[in-house]
């Protein structure tokens, strides 16, 4: 995995707060930078890929490590939204 520009530890926080914290952290990143999110809420494995899909950030992977999960997200450049598909 690429070296993260920032790491946030959401251990102990439950759904939806790991995602809330992720959203806040990604806002402060440069485009292309990687965020590492550490979480103990098992929902992160399901939620992070969906959040990335919704917000068009790149989900690089979520891995279990002992009691915690590590999730890597790359901030994508914003694209124009709202166009009918």
């Amino acid at each position: 995995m690429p070296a993260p520009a920032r790491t946030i530890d959401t251990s102990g926080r439950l759904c939806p707060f790991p995602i809330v914290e992720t959203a806040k952290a990604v806002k402060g990143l440069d485009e292309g930078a990687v965020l590492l999110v550490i979480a103990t809420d098992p929902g992160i494995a399901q939620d992070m890929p969906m959040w990335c899909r919704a917000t068009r950030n790149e989900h690089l992977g979520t891995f279990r490590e002992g009691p915690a999960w590590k999730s890597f997200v790359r901030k994508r450049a914003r694209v124009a939204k709202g166009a009918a598909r």
Partner: protein
Amino acid sequence: MTSRTVKAIGLVSGGLDSTLAVALLRRQGVEVKAVNFYTGLCVTETQRRKGGRADGTMPRNEALRAAADLEVDIEYVDISGAGYLDMLVHPKYGYGANANPCVDCRVFMMSRARQIMEAEGADFVFTGEVLGQRPKSQRRDTLRIVERDSGLTGRLLRPLSARLLEPTLPEREGLVDRSRLLDISGRSRLRQMALAEELGVADWPQPAGGCCYLTDEAFARKFFDVLDAREASGEGRRIVQDDVVLLSTGRHFRLSPRAKLVVSRTEVENALLERHVEGRARLAARDEVGPVALVEGEPTWEERVLAASIVARYGKGRDRAKVAVEWREDGAVEVYDVEPVRDEALVERLRI
């Protein structure tokens, strides 16, 4: 129709109606930002926090799933604080069948949505509400109340029922084409299902009869018990965030107006109660496997013994003549050597 980008804030639960509302507006080229409010009272969320359903499956976060499927940005907004809890206790428009002040709750959420609309420079707010679908909060009169009291007059669009309602400002200003909105009303979901097929919305949760604890009869009993007990003790009717977590956890017993016992039902609930020990007494059998329990308030000595006897009843020592139950409070430990309660009628009388 306007040529500029139109932006809207959509309240998205991930259910079929809110998903369709998003899809309908996106079809008109509206840029949508989805908002999902965290109240701390969502049944599915609590199931997830407790490790999933009884069958071992983990419920999905439907709002997130819908936003991902529709490729719309989503923001979680935490409204579970004191202002929201105060509204739950003192609803201007009263409760539904249980502890659900749906109209006031909608006003609260729409007011926050209006703030987000203003901050984002969006043109309007929309929801998946359907006229006549719910007995209290989705009547024509209550839809109007919510719009007025939230400060969203003219700026709150319900795309699924829009053609049955007064045209909103975005419709009158040509930001949204009213002729491409719908006139759905009532509880049947047949039209929504047909629309889902037409719009390519393939994945949505089955309606589960409400995802909010406040509409649950057992939860409501416990909710009003807390308020009544606080009022009786002179504290006044109020509820705090800690109460909300505990109300959806364990078996609850009212020992007296001054004291309540909460006994966990599972290992996950044991862990959850352990996180709420502060300010409460923690009870557990000393020598046998059994539940963790908390006592709130100021129990008398007799009520302490009763609480310990109830805790003993739910542990592995339930068939023993005596069980040692540890009572930990403020760093001190007492042991109560009690007979597990076997009087079912007594237990049921105390159960909230």
